[in-house]
């Protein structure tokens, strides 16, 4: 009897036919990046829709369909998707869902399975879930992440990082309200149009675009004194997604701070880079490590071009490149720490400090295990190297309250201003 009852959990495969007439729903994380990536997916023939609902319903659905103690990002993204399905906007038989899956030793690797569990609870188990992953954990015939397409996505991400970086450093100073966001929108549209016309992806075109973007932003009229800079690091989702961090960026802007957010490419490079460490420490496949090493170099080159373009347009400030960021962490945490954001989280804090951003918000979902290690766990050591570091760790979850979070943020800001005055 037991054999029967222990039946395998079959998953619904996303077929080639589905690609033709299904809409893939994706929860929002980074507005600029996702918009560009969406265009690329559309060109490949995927109908993709980014779900960006932000009301309380999302949290309630998340709580309803996932374990109450699961990470907040899982609750939110699954909540958003379930909410979208129940909204009546989509034909449930013509829709698929997509989530990213890194495959590391952190529970985030389980989001895809948890989403399937949620679907099952809602009697929607027939809806396919596509895993966006590069570890070969799950493959769907209708979803082809070949190398050439991946390269395109990476390019979109670099564009996204560039626009985000420039937006953040100019927004607090714009003389004319709206000018910076308008410029971001303009370039998002422009690049999307280029993509559609088969342009904007060759090296020459990218370089030209980078140059033009930087020139445009360098010309934004600014006013006002320099503001206190606050860096945001942390678990990838709550770091980036406004839904996850209670609109942290907006709050900091309102508090008259300049926000510095390390880009998305570094995270991708980090996940690829860990394979080399795996080889060194545990003797994992050499071939794999070599391919990944090649990719790190290739993508880093693109990042270096971006940095060079920014640097050609002072006073625009460029972030550090991946190699430099990585090197900073050397004396702080072992590169073998590869679950969740791993050593990169520590490295990003160090990179911010290294470039003079002393105030840092380390965001984390309540109960995030890797963060105990490489976020909170490293703060003390970081302070030994950078006594001026002013780091506040903020927990996010469905019942954490804004007033507590904002109180701690205000403390960080006051302390930061005081330290800046003292210098």
């Amino acid at each position, binding site marked *: 009897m037991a054999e029967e009852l222990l039946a395998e959990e079959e998953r619904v495969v996303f077929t080639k036919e589905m690609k033709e007439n299904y809409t893939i729903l994706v929860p929002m994380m980074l507005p600029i990046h996702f918009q560009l990536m969406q265009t690329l997916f559309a060109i490949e023939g995927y109908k993709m829709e980014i779900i960006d609902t932000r009301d309380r319903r999302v949290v309630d659905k998340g709580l309803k369909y996932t374990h109450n103690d*699961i990470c907040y990002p899982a609750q939110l993204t699954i909540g958003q998707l379930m909410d979208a399905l129940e909204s009546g906007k989509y034909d449930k038989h013509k829709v698929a869902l997509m989530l990213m899956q890194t495959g590391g030793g952190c529970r985030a690797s389980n989001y895809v399975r948890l989403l399937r569990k949620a679907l099952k609870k809602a009697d929607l188990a027939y809806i396919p879930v596509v895993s966006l992953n590069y570890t070969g954990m799950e493959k769907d015939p209708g979803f082809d992440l070949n190398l050439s397409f991946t390269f395109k996505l990476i390019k979109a991400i670099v564009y996204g990082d560039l626009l985000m970086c420039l937006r953040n450093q100019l927004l607090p100073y714009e003389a004319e309200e709206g000018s910076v966001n308008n410029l971001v929108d303009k370039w998002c549209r422009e690049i999307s149009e280029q993509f559609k016309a088969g342009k904007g992806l060759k090296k020459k075109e990218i370089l030209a675009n980078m140059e033009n973007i930087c020139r445009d932003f360098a010309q934004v009229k600014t006013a006002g004194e320099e503001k206190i800079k606050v860096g945001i690091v942390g678990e990838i989702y709550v770091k980036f997604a406004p839904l996850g961090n209670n609109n942290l960026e907006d709050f900091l802007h309102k508090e008259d701070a300049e926000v510095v957010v390390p880009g998305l490419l570094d995270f991708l490079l980090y996940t690829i880079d860990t394979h080399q460490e795996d080889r060194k420490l545990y003797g994992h496949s050499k071939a794999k490590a070599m391919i990944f090493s090649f990719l790190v170099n290739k993508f880093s080159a693109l990042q270096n071009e971006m940095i060079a373009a920014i640097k050609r347009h002072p006073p625009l400030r460029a972030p550090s490149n991946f190699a430099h960021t990585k090197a900073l962490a050397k004396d702080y945490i072992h590169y073998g720490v590869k679950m969740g954001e791993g050593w990169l989280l520590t490295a990003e804090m160090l990179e911010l400090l290294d470039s003079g951003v002393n105030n840092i918000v380390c965001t984390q979902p309540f109960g995030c295990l890797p963060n105990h290690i490489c976020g909170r766990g490293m703060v003390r050591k970081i302070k030994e190297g950078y006594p001026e570091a002013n780091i506040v760790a903020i927990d996010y979850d469905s019942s954490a309250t804004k007033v507590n979070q904002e109180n701690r943020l205000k*403390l960080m800001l006051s302390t930061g201003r005081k330290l800046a005055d003292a210098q």
Partner: protein
Amino acid sequence: MYRIGLDIGSTTIKAVVLDEKDNIIYKSYQRHRAMIKEKTQELLSEMEASIPENEPASLVITGSAGMGMAERIGVGFVQEVIATQIAVESYPETIDAVIELGGEDAKVLFLTGGVEVRMNGSCAGGTGAFIDQMAVLLDVDLEQLNELAKKAKRIYPIASRCGVFAKTDIQPLLNQGAAKEDIALSIYHAVVNQTIGGLAQGRDFVGRIMFLGGPLSFMDALQKSFVDVLNLSPDQAVFPENAQYYVAYGAALYANREKPVNLASLAEKIKSSNQELAEGNYLEPLFANQEEYDEFCARHAKAMVKTADLVSYDKPVTIGIDSGSTTVKVAVVGEEGELLYSVYKDNNGKAVEIVKEALEEIYKLNPQVQIKASASTGYGEELVKNAFRLDYGLVETMAHLTAAQKFMPDVEFLLDIGGQDIKCFKIKNGAIDSIFLNEACSSGCGSFISTFATSMGHEVEEFAKLGLFAPHPVDLGSRCTVFMNSSVKQAQKEGVTIDNISAGLSVSVVKNALYKVIRANSKDDLGKKIVVQGGTLLNDAILRAFEKEVEVEVVRPVIAGLMGAYGAALFAKELPIEKSQILTAEELKTFAPTVTSRICQYCGNHCQLSVNSFGDGRELISGNRCERPLNNGLLINKTTFNAYQYKLGLIGKTKAKKDAKRGHIAIPMGLNMYENWHFWHAFWTALDFEVIRSPFGNRELYLHGQHTVPSDTICYPAKLMHGHIEYLLDKGEKRIFYPCLPYNFDEHISDNHYNCPVVAYYPEVLSANMKALKEVDFSYEYFGLHNRKYFTKSMEHYLKEKYSITAKKEVAKAIEAAYQAQDNYRQGLFKYGEEALKYAKENNLPVIVLAGRPYHVDPEINHGIDKLIADFGAVVISEDCLPLENEKKRRGVLNQWTYHARLYNAADYVCTHDNIYLVQLVSFGCGLDAVTTDEVRDILERNHQLYTQIKIDEINNLGAVKIRLRSLFAAIERKK
């Protein structure tokens, strides 16, 4: 210019007016009871009066609840820690650190040697609110609490992380009759430990330390506790005058830079300011109008119980006594189940006296009463049963089920929200099918509401009534009640009125029960036949909230608060007894219970025993972890098979090599070392090292290391590691070996074979946060034991670099010994499991797979739950004793952690074998268990097996665990 500092905290409002020369000309400290607007207006006019006419004055607001106010009326705001800092800087002497306790905030400021500021995170444990709650629990006011603490003789360990945990520690102490004096001081010590453990985060308190905030200025016994624990000289501890006003004082000093304001017009502004109500954060009213409420009341009045008069009743009766965590209930029931007499009272820590009074009254009302049988239930079951010589003690769940079936024979779901617990169970075919009890983190629901009501200056009934017609109940979320504190704070900040807060709290309690405890996914999960009970559900607002949430009209017996006692009495009716042995009226006269405490000397645990003597030679010993104090020191070994003890024994048996050529190597005995001990022991011994290990965990060890724990929400097993390291350092060990192991052995039953991030990388955290490790050789290299060939290679390299061991043969031998030892260990476990199962079968004993992770073997982590289960007469094995499946099963979750794969493997085994049940141990704060518990539950429930989960943390009280286990065994009984 005159300057005003206004400090609006979560529970109090403080104001200070300074004249031109910084003299304090006005000060005020009051509880605001959530009426921030009104209080502020009042204060403003008082302050205005204190300032000479036409003198300009500026004003700055500070405090967590003041943020919104400052914004709305357009005055300056300064974060309270900054205000504190400014105030402290004005103190004539140099202050090195400040410890400030507020209503719900605790702060530590390090001022010299690198300024650092720490605030408690999302938890309000160890703060003023916590002390308030504890005072309410002891039924004393704060002043009395302070006086009590001064007379204390001993300190009990009380978890301080949050009020709820502490309650679960204190309640049993109270019920066991521990002295209030001792508990009072223990509470203060808990606060001190929380402050140090949560906020020091690796920094030492050196130099002169100033203590600030309300609690620290009013309670000198608390001051003394801090001085004692931190070991401060009189010169080092600074308790300034006006400590409770310090923050307001700092804000006033900060107001130097502000422009003068017109106080009268500010008061006007406050009056007219209407907080912007955020959309979507408000719920539907509980009742739209009086008619709806009347209809509701009429409907519930129908769930009657037959009554009769005890005075004239001449047939046999039974007595049920439910000695709950906060209340005592007594019911006398007649032959037909009619209720003859009842008592429902707050126990105030005096359960025995209340029961005594009740029995006296019963004998007085009807001196001829024929008591057929009597039974007790609830937290104080054992004490009451022994004190009054009742005939039977039954687990609460059974009592409640018995009572519920009287009202609704085909009941499918029973929900009981009591003072401290939520208990619910599904009933299938008249038997308990699955039980849900609240976890440590969300318990205290009922008492939370009453504490909350009290802190806002209301009686609990009146407080709940306030919410009945509230137009916009505030949405306070559905997590653990402690977190609700901050949600309420947020609501207060937004100016939400008390009726809407009250209604919101009612909804939260319900949501908490539904989504946190029961984990219902849809309303249909509970079925249609629902009985609710428990004192908390006597509250109409909460009951209404529940009905609205599940969309079912439920039955609440009119005696909802009495059901435990009523059920116990009904249960007693079925006992095969003719005449109860309960104390007679005569015996009651000489009944004089006293409590003494002593420390058990029979073993190294040194349990603190409470001895209740009843004046007639009988006594009850509690607080013991084994039966030795009950049997004059003899250890009667009931345990047949207990894999937990077996594993501990195996580790205990390994011997360190004496006079080893290469000296000592020390290993902290925690986390994955419980799995890999034999591996590393064999390895280093073969290399001629003397392998030293820290002891198995204990509470002192934890306290010893807690000041270096950087993350207060990490699991207890991880926190303990700090103590292990401290231990080894104290022993003078110079070489500590604790490698990072992201990968575990691959047992070929999972998709990958990781360790969890904490197990994998905790040495990194230790290295980064324990300064003393820099003085020794702390080796935390990365290895992969799953790949022997590569491990050999990395080890050769490591040993050569580190110890100049170059002989490959020697290394190879050590590695062979290590893998052999590991293999022997695993095979030994399998064999043990096999024997245990065989023994159980032959003797027809139930087998409990106490499933967790290898480090749950640590007695400080499992708190002796394994022995408790063994005491119930079951055979205890662990998940790693069961044979591994010979194929990778596809799971509902990504199966990529070795330890978890064993859990799923064990769940499958349980499903395919008879008389074997799984109990899962879950560490509080373990993020991965959100994944594993659901999957294990799924596997079991799909196969109609019982699933029992026990959450463990630093709390050492097994009360709730006992209920759960007894209910499990009762369910197993019924299943047969």
